[in-house]
């Protein structure tokens, strides 16, 4: 029996007249880590924007724990249980590191696994620089703040959009080292990655996107190198 936390059916998305997503179907099982890979312009970030309510979608196209959330605004989607680490981190320059983390709990009402201390325990370096402006940190540390900020709402689903972009391999390794604990907290995770190797390492399930469509889907061990190549680039290896 499946236990889908997030279910997407026949999702379309538009930027004005330009259609960016064409009937995307996707299921995230509870506790699963799902990686979405694809080249630039494949529609990965558009999919993230649609899930988080930045782009409007048909109400029934996206369901969280069986509840339609497609027509909700971004704050309502967060309250429903989905938070995102946005591409480029998007920390608030006016806020300190600690304020940047705390603002992730802005609309939180109850207690949960993730507290400020739990975030500092996950990324100890942040405690040392908690009074610094968020944007004064290194890229890797900023990414830790962005992840901590997203976790503070104690989400059912955590979306991570290109979190390795522009970071050194050793920093990427450190950041992905936090994922087992994030999954232990009960959060299911969707990771958007251009780095196929990294995505295959962290995910239980991989979807490949191209030109606004899912072109390949399966467990990392089941997908051949050639199949991924074909789905990623749209041409045979």
């Amino acid at each position, binding site marked *: 029996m499946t236990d889908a936390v997030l279910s997407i059916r026949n999702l379309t998305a538009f930027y004005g007249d330009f259609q960016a997503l064409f009937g995307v179907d996707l299921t995230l099982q509870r506790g699963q880590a799902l990686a979405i890979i694809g080249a630039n312009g494949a529609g990965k970030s558009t999919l993230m924007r649609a899930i988080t309510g930045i782009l409007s979608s048909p109400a029934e196209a996206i369901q969280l724990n069986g509840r339609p959330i497609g027509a909700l*605004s*971004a*704050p309502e989607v967060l*309250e429903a249980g989905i938070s995102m680490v946005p591409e480029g981190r998007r920390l*608030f320059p006016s*806020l300190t590191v600690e304020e940047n983390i705390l603002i992730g709990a*802005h609309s939180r009402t109850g207690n949960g696994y993730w507290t400020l201390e739990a975030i500092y325990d996950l990324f100890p370096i942040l405690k040392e620089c908690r009074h610094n402006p968020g*944007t004064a940190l290194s890229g890797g540390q900023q990414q830790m703040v962005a992840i901590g900020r997203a976790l503070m709402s104690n989400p059912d689903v955590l979306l991570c959009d290109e979190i390795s972009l522009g970071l050194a391999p050793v920093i990427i390794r450190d950041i992905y080292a936090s994922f087992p604990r994030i999954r232990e907290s009960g959060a299911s995770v969707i990771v958007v990655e251009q780095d196929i190797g990294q995505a295959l390492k962290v995910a239980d399930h991989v979807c490949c996107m191209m030109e606004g469509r899912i072109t390949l889907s399966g467990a990392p061990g089941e997908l051949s190198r050639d199949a991924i190549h074909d789905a990623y680039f749209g041409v045979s290896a």
Partner: protein
Amino acid sequence: MIWVDTIVQGILLGGLYALFAAGLSLVFGIMRLVNLAHGDLIVLAAFLILTVVNLLGLNPFVAALIAAPVMFAVGWLLQSYVLNRVLGDDILPPLLVTFGLSVVIQNGLLESFSADSQKLSAGPIEAASLPLGPITVGVMPLLTLISAVVVIFALNQLFYRTKLGQAFRATSDDAVTAGLMGIRPRNVFAIATGIAMVVATIAALYLGIRANFDPSIGPARLIYAFEAVIIGGLGSLWGTLAGGILIGVAQALGAAVNPEWQILAGHIAFVIVLLIRPRGLFPRAND
């Protein structure tokens, strides 16, 4: 000694200008909205206080306590139902709408209260003064400056010590990402404009007690407020206080040389600061 007295009087006058400007600075700092009706909204608040005084026979200070929440509601409704609809990447629509609002408020007040000058009477305190060493300062001007400092301090505490202040700053930085944090930017903007209108009510109280007012004086208050905000650095609240005081001192010094130079001296000080520091005296680091 006359120059010391002149400068002190200028500093006290600057308190009033800082009060004019604080609401404008708050709104600009959070939503990058230049509210061309700000001066008229101050005058509207002054007429509201006057109405409460006339209807209930209250002291203007007490009447302002009643007017303040009403003005908060005016600001909240104005932002929610008018200004939020025109906020966006293009700065022209909000400019046009607030310009139109300025005209509407002026004509509405003219219809309701006529063009006659009005004044708020606070009683003997208006003529009271305090000896301060070799000079004497009026109690009301001193109270105005103290109120300006308290208002700026309170707004700073709100900005940097409260959850609402975090939401203000986050929304100001990046409204889309703030939405991902569960913040509703339109609500935040409405609350900010409501608070700006409470500050405008405090400014209106001192404006109405200090001098005569009529429906047409709003745009001139807007110019002083603008100059104070720009001198201080857009979005900087303490800078706005400094800007107000600089204009007040310049006007007082100009008037001491020749009474006809009072207003001009304030504008010249503004231009000089712009030439030397185009981003103002205390610009925000991330602007």
